[in-house]
């Protein structure tokens, strides 16, 4: 079984995110970045499947794929330290400012160049843009079924089975391989890289591809080719300082009074 896990290098969620004033894109260089936390669950899911399949990690490979600036190599490194076999980094200056549609195009072409994986895994969303649409777009481009937001994942022969916990029901979704699966943060507990894993990662193959390597024209991606445009952005004004009381036996009563005054009761 060949598994490709799509991962993203994102600005640290604890950092103050902002925009580049010149072109209204996310400022990805001014802040510290890291492997998106939600992608760790996808990597872990891939490693677990490879370990459990016949032949184990010797015959079942996990390749991580990312699209991003030079520093995105850090995300690949972390995935290799966790146990992934190989990494592919698509990096090209023309990619700057790409929207979700263009990102899915680059990922789709890279997946085709890697080969024909049995399974493509992703996290549920990135922790920066957090649109959560790239998995569906990628599945559409590759003509694959998508089974998303898996809280449980099993592969049985040529079939993938997931459990998704929805608002009204917990459902089982089944698809034939090849398929695209996105996983939630409920599916597993991602492993920390071991010392052995960190040493082994240094010898693992990482390929860096440009748009030309994928047969993509620079004009088909990036900010100028985006299908949407950020017209303006404004920093949200800080909320006006509210009234804060310390409970001295009547805190609940005061709270109820606030609710009555503001017509919530």
């Amino acid at each position, binding site marked *: 079984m060949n598994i490709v896990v799509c991962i993203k290098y994102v600005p640290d969620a604890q950092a103050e995110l902002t925009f580049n004033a010149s072109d209204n894109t996310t400022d990805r260089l001014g802040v510290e970045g890291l492997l998106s936390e939600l992608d760790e669950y996808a990597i872990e899911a891939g490693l677990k499947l490879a370990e459990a399949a016949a032949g184990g990690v010797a015959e079942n490979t996990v390749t991580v794929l990312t699209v991003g600036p030079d520093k995105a190599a850090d995300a690949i490194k972390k995935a290799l330290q966790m146990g992934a076999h190989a990494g592919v980094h698509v990096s090209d200056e023309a990619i700057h400012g790409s929207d979700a549609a263009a990102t899915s195009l680059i990922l789709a072409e890279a997946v085709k160049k890697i080969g024909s994986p049995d399974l493509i895994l992703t996290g549920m969303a990135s*922790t920066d843009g957090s649109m959560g649409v790239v998995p569906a777009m990628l599945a559409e481009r590759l*003509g694959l079924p998508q089974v998303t937001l898996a809280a449980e994942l099993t592969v049985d022969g040529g079939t993938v089975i997931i459990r998704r916990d929805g608002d009204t029901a917990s459902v089982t979704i089944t698809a034939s391989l090849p398929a695209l699966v996105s996983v939630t943060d409920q599916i597993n507990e991602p492993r920390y890289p071991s010392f052995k894993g960190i040493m082994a990662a240094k010898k693992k193959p990482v390929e860096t591809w440009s748009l030309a390597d994928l047969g993509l024209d620079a004009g088909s991606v990036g900010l100028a080719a985006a299908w949407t445009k950020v017209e303006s952005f404004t920093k949200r004004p800080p909320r006006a300082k*509210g009234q804060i009381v310390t409970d001295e036996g009547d805190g609940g009563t005061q709270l109820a009074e606030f609710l009555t005054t503001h017509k919530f009761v």
Partner: protein
Amino acid sequence: MAEVLVLVDHVDGMVRKTTLEMLTIARRLGEPSAVFIGAGLDAAKEVLAQYGAEKLYGFESADYDDYVVAPKAEVLAQLVTSASPAAVLMTSSPEGKEIAGRLSIKTESGLITDAVDVQAGEGGAVRTTQSVFAGGYTVQATVTKGTPIITVKPNSVAPEAVSGAAVEQAVEVSISEGAKGARITDRKPRAATGRPELTEAAIVVSGGRGTAGDFSKIEEFADSLGAAVGASRAAVDAGWYPHTSQIGQTGKEVSPQLYVAAGISGAIQHRAGMQTSKTIIAINKDEEAPIFELVDFGVVGDLFKVLPQATEAVNKAKG
């Protein structure tokens, strides 16, 4: 006037409030056309007409409910071609976003997700407002290619009842075999709580680490206000409350009239899910908790003392 397609968000014909909100938004951009996919069309007709649907495209088959999102995207793509709408609106739920994602690629059209406002701009442009970076910024955006596809967050506008003709349109669509690749093979319904759905609720009361696993006071207070119950990631990870109730970056984003955070410190991941709430109240033992930076009203104190007292006072005030 051009049509605006609204994908009806429903459960077996029970139309969700978000649909009525989208019909209200659609009237700003053109003539609302409701697109109903799934089982239960008859039950939905009346309310769709009451909220201004001029046309009604019905595709009624239980099959659609079993094949996840791909067939719905195919139906919409065919309607985009035949009706040339000014925009396509759907709910900003995981399913809505996935349908939108597939539709965007099929029709080579720009997609904007999580809009909290949609207005008609100059020259027929559709201008959206979104809240990004954990609510730290507000962004105005437009679609520059194809048919604008917008997913709208629940509670973005107040639904306005306006009578519409809701004329049923007979349209033949075809669904490819490829779209039937993923199928729901089993459903285990959740026990109904009797409380409103989180993303639609006007009031949400959430509990966190400070509950130490006992949500009874949170639930009693929520019930006194007719509110939905949410939970922080810490409470969900500890197994105290189901993941479907999680508020925050990896759970649900809510934007109610009133949000009450009890025993929640207010980490950035949580704030991303509730920062756009209109009024915010917090109860926390720690006066330094970051959640107090957001509140309109805060109580520094023990939620197990403050909430029961407030519940009693609210129940008394209701008479």
